[in-house]
């Protein structure tokens, strides 16, 4: 199969869906001629024109609000939020205005919009351009949240996001834009709420999201060389969450680590670990271990920044100890 970058995959998904549905359009800062700073949207304005690939002023609450209004009245806007750190700025529009419309109207109003943005540290971008804030939106009923872990997921989840009738937040890993993966030429969509078993194994389950799927896979390779068989699962969407697939795996392996790039404290690992602890309690040999990012603002200095995010080595080390029956805590 041909291999394309995550960036190209997103671009293809957007182009296909924009051809498919004339009510779709893209809205965001420097999305048109510049194709965004990450160049993910290059070429779209040439095909679809400035009416459908719209450069906005630096007004995040404003243009997210505009997207809500357009979605509420019959269009399917796709908002480009340049950095995931700016989610803070648009929380009211996303969580008060978009997420609740369907419910508050008793099912009469819907907001079919997509907010695409990114997450991830270790790019030396400092504390305000490196955050992984997905838990903030995952907590809010009415929003769906997808975290693609490769070009393949990025394309398939984006297409589903655009066709879904709800506000969907899709968060890409900004370090992965140039990573290639096999992506079919033929059209495909990836359904929400279906976890992907990236690798089968029997001794321990490694659940990774977004950037941490690769980390989990690398850890699994290390472990394999030591005779430990790790199963790696990517939930793909954290809302809805495919609890069944995760539970099935954990009931089989009896051990699990949940790995995520958001801060650990009050982050998504707590939810996932709790659900596994609750529903697979009698199968577990040890409590589910959580590995989130450190609970510190992301430091600029490279020597510090690299410490803040889980690495394959540290995941493997924890897995090894868990499998050896050691009692370990994340904190």
């Amino acid at each position, binding site marked *: 199969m041909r291999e394309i970058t995550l960036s190209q995959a997103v671009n293809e998904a957007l182009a296909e869906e924009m051809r498919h549905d004339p009510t779709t359009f893209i809205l965001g800062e420097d999305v048109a001629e510049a194709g965004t700073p990450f160049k993910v949207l290059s070429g779209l304005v040439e095909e679809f024109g400035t009416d459908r690939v719209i450069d906005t002023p630096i007004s995040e609450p*404003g243009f997210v609000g505009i997207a809500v209004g357009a979605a509420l009245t019959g269009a399917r806007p796709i908002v480009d939020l340049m950095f995931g750190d700016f989610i803070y700025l648009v929380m009211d529009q996303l969580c*008060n*205005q978009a997420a609740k419309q369907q419910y508050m109207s008793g099912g009469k109003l819907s907001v079919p919009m997509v907010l695409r943005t990114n997450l991830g540290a270790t790019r030396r971008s400092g504390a305000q351009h490196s955050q992984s804030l997905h838990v903030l939106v995952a907590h809010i009923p009415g929003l*769906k949240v997808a975290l693609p872990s490769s070009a393949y997921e990025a394309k398939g989840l984006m297409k589903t996001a655009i066709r879904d009738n709800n506000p969907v937040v899709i968060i890409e890993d900004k370090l992965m834009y140039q990573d290639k993966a096999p992506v079919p030429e033929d059209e495909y969509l990836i359904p929400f709420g279906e976890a992907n078993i990236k690798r089968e194994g029997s001794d321990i389950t490694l659940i990774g999201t977004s950037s941490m799927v690769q980390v989990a896979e690398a850890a699994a390779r290390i472990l394999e060389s030591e005779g430990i068989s790790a199963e790696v699962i990517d939930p793909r969407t954290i809302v809805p969450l495919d609890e069944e697939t995760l539970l099935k795996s954990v009931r089989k392996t009896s051990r699990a680590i949940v790995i995520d790039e958001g801060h650990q404290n009050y982050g998504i690992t707590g939810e996932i670990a709790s659900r596994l602890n609750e529903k697979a309690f009698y199968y577990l040999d040890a409590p589910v271990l959580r590995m989130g990012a450190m609970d510190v603002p992301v430091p600029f200095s490279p020597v510090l920044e690299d410490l803040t995010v889980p690495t394959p080595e540290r995941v493997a080390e924890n897995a090894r100890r868990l499998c050896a029956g050691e009692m370990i805590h994340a904190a």
Partner: protein
Amino acid sequence: MTSKTKTKTKTSPNTDDYLRMYTQMVRIRTFEDNANQLYLAGKMQGLTHMYSGEEAVAVGICEALTDNDRITSTHRGHGHCVAKGANYKEMFCELLGKQEGYCRGKGGSMHIADQSHGNLGANAIVGGSMGIATGSALRAKLLGQDDVTVCFFGDGATAQGLLYEVMNMAALWKLPVIYACENNGYSEYTKTEEIAAGSITARAEAFGIEAFSIDGQDVLGVNELSKKLVARCRNNEGPFFVELMTYRYHGHHVGDINREYYRSKKEEADWKENRDPIIRFRGWLVEQGIATEEEIETLNEQIKQDAKEAVAYAEAAAYPDVAEVDMHVYAETDPATLQAGN
């Protein structure tokens, strides 16, 4: 402004319009009187904000719109809802949390919406709907639809930065949206001059938006300007900004009873006695020979009766089934559309 012209007569082609405007204003006032009673009688719970006194604003503007045109409303939203064509029954049901309400009881007073008439809904976040209104206008422009969107908000809401963000985009992109600022002199318990520096209309003008400041108690004046601006919006000349000077008769919300510490009874009396939009328009209708005092009394009575019946209906109506509590969190998506090739 137009109330002194004497050119219209009972046979004028506008007679129906005038009577409908009058009717709609009285329907709002009557709705609010009943809502207030329901609250005082302990039959309605929660936070509710009365529109009484501001009727000419909602009616003057909404009468210039079609059902296809959209509005966004505020926490003080009953007036906009009635003016945009809503029925009493579904409104009262909503205020009482009943299943037959416009939002199946899930929205309540602060989130009432009436999709069928283009009312995109009240909003409990001050200024929260400014983006929505502007987005509705962008949708119209992009999809080549010729509807206009009116964004209602209060003087207090002009302090929200969102307004300036969306006015900038509306101006840059020439969107068919009218920002209607209902300046009733107060935001909650604070006078407008204490929270708004400079000039409200100048703020819109600074973004290159044509702005107007008019008497919000004169329904004909409001309607005339609105019709012009709606037509100009349809002709791609938008956006516009209109400040409407008006007054709320009640407290900020139904529970705000002792309010002399922030505004005097004298001031309230002055507005009610000398600037009431309904009394004023009624006088004009009679003066113009469009309706007699008797006809107007009959109309008023009829509306009171309608309200009474709707209230009784709503009080007797069923609450939503408890199973509804976790329905409508997510809209459904037809599984077929999620298949490749579709």
